[in-house]
């Protein structure tokens, strides 16, 4: 047998693009999302929301609503005095003062942004609940609004929370190396103002909640990425014992961070169910989603990047102003700091410094949206690398290659003391250039320019930090998250020899029912069709922390693998006992637990399980019956996926319209489990980043009114705007986990915005445009062209 045959026999399903186990229910319309669920006796909720960005609530008149036959109840913030605390924020960095004004499910006394909830109306019928909400009359006394982070800290600025006396939320710094010496050693320093504007996660399924409190117990169906967090905080806020709460994430129609939250609506509907004695259902409208589901990004940074004249990087300093919006939600103030961990990117930079100031404004809260801090950091670095190359008169890829951390220098400790697990940045860039066919692209440039079309090519070489996370680094005494970030899994072999896996993660489109099954099937010598993955339910087994931060494969699947390994160990003991062979001589081969060297002599998992469940007396003496194991896994380190992306754009000179004509992505997330699924994650990430770079922008006017309140004004890219993507992979194993894997869910979003922006700037250089900030809509691009031509 060759080595490849051996590997295929040992792991026949890993690395295969198996079609997904979750798809049959989804393609036939038979999946159950939250809005597809109903409980007998349920009431429908509609939420009365503030039209004002900042105002005192003078009075709330619910009488007209209550007079309606079909309205059952109306509650306001005053009715909710029995809550044990406000909505949670889970980041308490040691020694750092973070202002955290209370944030209630229904406003108490004042409203702080458009969409702030003021009252809830319950009715037998969804339409009637909305009618009832229109009959709740709220008198507001408008207060001055703070809308601009760059002036929010000036004297005399309107205060979002007057009681704090400032709009500043907190300051936080992370640095390593001698930053002053670094810049002193530089021959060239570029400084740019880098804007990463506000975006919406906008999963196509809006959020939804169906809460059912009865006989002292709460069952909460919610479209969430984090059912276990929701349970914990529901217990703390509502004063219900944790074991009496079951949180279920049914089919979840996308998250992108928007559903990594403990929301006011979850607490409100649960509370209202307890209060009214009826199940309560609330389904978010898209307009509500745009106004009140947390947004992402919204940072303005001043980035300085220094290098010697031969292109050696000496220092990077990034001063970030981040918009928190009106309240801190689960991770709001921690998001910008996540980027600080990788502020030196794929480069060996001796001095790195990030200084973050966070600011309150009268806007919806920001929080984690796909990438959370790392897209912003990567954008700062990669855009400034191009700017520096121009300043140095050096080829931008040569500058990058010159400063890459070399592949034989891993694990690599950065100036910040962060240890990158593994990498081969040249390898990824080499493969990218192979795919790109640069000469052909360049050759078309002149021809296109004659037609008024400017072609540009942009690059991004990136790494990111994911697989959240080693608890010792991210936890209370480290970074300050008030939780460990481990995962757990239970692997249970049924009597008939099939497998049920319980994971504490909560996937919502990423395909883990398939990829986890591939891993388990290989370990136990069964077919993935025989392995069922149960997730998203606090009532059915494994504890966990949920799905976000590209953690589910690197942490959750590793926990599953470890539990499966324990099952294998037990099965080997049983088989060795039955076959009278040494346990170390039993291997899983071709679907059987067999004795090394005599593959015919062996037992299939079903036979082993039969013994463990039906005839436990045949097991080794003293061994417990059953074939089921649990594993808790807390990673030793983060994992650091990486890659090299190129974007090719054509820009119409006359209109400023940008068209992405090709996008080539090389990503490395370790040895693939299911290449098709990886590609899918990359595609979606790139599309979301192209959306941000070119089309998407959550905008408020000066009075705090939301301008982009629907999909009419907030432009998600459609199929017509995007090209097909060209993807490939290199595979550099991570030493952190036994599977060698890294996360891939956010990579596209992290890598792609600078590739797009660099491409547009490259296209416009012949016209005199040297720098631009996102979003690069036609008007912005056209204006830049006109201004450069003057």
């Amino acid at each position, binding site marked *: 047998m060759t080595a490849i045959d051996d590997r295929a026999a040992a792991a026949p399903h890993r690395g295969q693009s198996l079609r997904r186990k979750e798809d049959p229910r989804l393609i*036939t319309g038979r999946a159950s999302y939250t809005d597809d669920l109903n409980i007998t006796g349920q009431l429908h909720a509609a939420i009365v929301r503030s039209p004002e960005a900042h105002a005192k609530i003078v009075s709330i008149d619910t009488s007209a609503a209550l007079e309606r036959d079909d309205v059952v109840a109306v509650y306001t913030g005053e009715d909710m005095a029995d809550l044990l605390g406000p909505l949670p924020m889970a980041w308490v960095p040691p020694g750092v003062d973070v202002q955290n004004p209370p944030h209630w499910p229904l406003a108490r006394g004042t409203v702080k942004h458009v969409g702030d909830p003021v009252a809830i109306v319950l009715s037998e019928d969804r339409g009637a609940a909305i009618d009832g909400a229109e009959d709740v009359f709220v008198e507001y006394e408008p207060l001055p609004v703070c809308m601009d982070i760059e002036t929010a800290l000036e004297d005399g600025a309107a205060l979002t929370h007057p009681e704090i006396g400032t709009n500043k939320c907190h300051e936080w710094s992370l640095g390593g190396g001698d930053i002053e010496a670094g810049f002193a050693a530089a021959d060239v320093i570029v400084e740019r103002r880098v804007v990463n504007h506000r975006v919406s996660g906008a999963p196509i399924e809006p959020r939804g909640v169906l809460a059912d409190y009865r006989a002292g117990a709460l069952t909460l169906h919610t479209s969430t990425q984090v059912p276990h967090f929701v349970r914990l905080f529901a217990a703390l806020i509502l004063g219900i014992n944790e074991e009496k709460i079951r949180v279920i994430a049914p089919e979840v129609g996308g998250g992108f961070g928007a559903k990594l939250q403990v929301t006011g609506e979850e607490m409100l509907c649960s509370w209202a169910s307890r209060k009214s004695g009826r199940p309560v259902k609330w389904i978010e409208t898209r307009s509500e989603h745009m106004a009140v589901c947390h947004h992402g990004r919204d940072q303005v940074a001043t980035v300085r990047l220094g290098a010697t004249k031969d292109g050696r990087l000496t220092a990077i300093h990034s001063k970030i102003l981040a918009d928190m919006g009106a309240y801190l939600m689960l991770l709001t103030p921690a998001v910008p700091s996540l980027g600080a961990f990788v502020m030196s990117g794929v480069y060996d930079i001796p001095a790195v410094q990030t200084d973050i100031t966070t600011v309150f404004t009268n806007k919806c809260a920001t929080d984690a949206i796909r990438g959370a801090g790392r897209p912003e950091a990567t954008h700062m670095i990669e855009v400034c690398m191009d700017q520096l190359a121009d300043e140095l008169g050096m080829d931008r890829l040569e500058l990058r290659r010159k400063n890459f951390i070399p592949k034989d220098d891993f694990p690599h400790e950065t100036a910040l003391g962060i240890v990158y697990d593994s990498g081969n940045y040249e390898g990824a860039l080499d493969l990218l250039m192979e795919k790109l066919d640069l000469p052909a692209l360049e050759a078309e440039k002149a021809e296109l320019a004659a037609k008024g079309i400017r072609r540009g090519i942009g690059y991004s070489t990136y790494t990111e930090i994911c697989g959240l996370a080693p608890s010792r680094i991210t936890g209370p005494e480290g970074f300050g998250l008030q939780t460990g970030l481990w995962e757990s899994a239970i692997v249970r072999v049924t009597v008939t020899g099939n497998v049920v896996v319980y994971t504490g993660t909560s996937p919502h489109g990423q395909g883990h029912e398939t990829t986890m099954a591939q891993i388990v099937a290989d370990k136990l010598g069964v077919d993935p069709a025989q392995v069922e993955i149960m997730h998203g339910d606090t009532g059915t087994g494994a504890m966990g922390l949920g799905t976000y931060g590209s953690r589910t494969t690197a942490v959750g699947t590793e926990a599953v693998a470890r539990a499966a390994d324990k099952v294998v160990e037990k099965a080997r003991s049983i088989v060795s006992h039955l076959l009278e062979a040494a346990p170390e001589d039993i291997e899983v081969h071709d679907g059987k637990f067999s004795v090394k060297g005599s593959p015919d002599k062996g037992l299939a998992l079903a036979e082993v399980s039969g013994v463990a469940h039906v005839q436990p007396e045949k097991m080794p003496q003293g061994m417990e019956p059953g074939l089921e194991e649990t594993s808790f896994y807390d990673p030793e380190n983060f994992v650091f996926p990486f890659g090299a992306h190129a974007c090719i754009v054509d820009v119409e000179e006359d209109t400023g319209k940008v068209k992405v004509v090709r996008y080539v992505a090389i990503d490395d997330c370790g040895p693939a489990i299911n290449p098709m699924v990886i590609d899918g994650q990359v595609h*979606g990430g790139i599309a*979301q980043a192209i959306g941000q770079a070119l089309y998407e922008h959550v905008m408020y006017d000066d009075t705090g009114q939301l301008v982009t309140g629907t999909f009419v004004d907030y432009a*998600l890219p459609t*199929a017509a705007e995007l090209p097909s993507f060209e993807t490939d992979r290199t595979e550099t194993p991570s030493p952190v986990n036994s599977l060698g894997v890294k996360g891939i869910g956010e990579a596209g979003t992290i890598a792609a915005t600078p590739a797009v922006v660099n491409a547009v700037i490259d296209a416009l250089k012949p016209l005199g445009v040297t720098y631009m900030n996102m979003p690069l809509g036609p008007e912005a691009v056209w204006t830049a062209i006109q201004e450069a031509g003057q």
Partner: protein
Amino acid sequence: MSTTVPVQVTVNGQARNVQVEPRQLLVHLLRDQLGLTGTHVGCDTSNCGACTVHVDGQSCKSCTVLAVQVDGAEITTIEGLGQEGNLHPLQEAFWNNHGLQCGYCTPGMIMAAADLLQRNPDPSEDEVRHGLEGNLCRCTGYHNIVKSVLDAAGKLNVTQVGA
């Protein structure tokens, strides 16, 4: 309760007589009254296409039509297009090509694509992209959706030629 009016429709081949509020949208008739929850709601401005069904053989955003307007019409939803064991070639192609992730846009996307292929059985990539412009997907970046539709078109054509 407001007054209701009778509506007679054929849904997935079955005649149904229902009473609806005059303001009721087709999507809510399908989901709430007929229990066909495969048709989804993703927006309130007729942008996302998650609610796409066929009305008299043509694709239609069911959040944009009042239930009373479909009196006498024939409606097909994702549940009527094909079922497990008897999948429509588009459903099969979406499965084979990873044309979906969270699945929320998928029923609408498949119904829109089915209509597109009826009108244009052999579309180019560009025609597929423009043909699906009214349907938003946040997960797939459309890459594998387009691939799925082209794959299904090829298979449908082979079937037709062979028939």
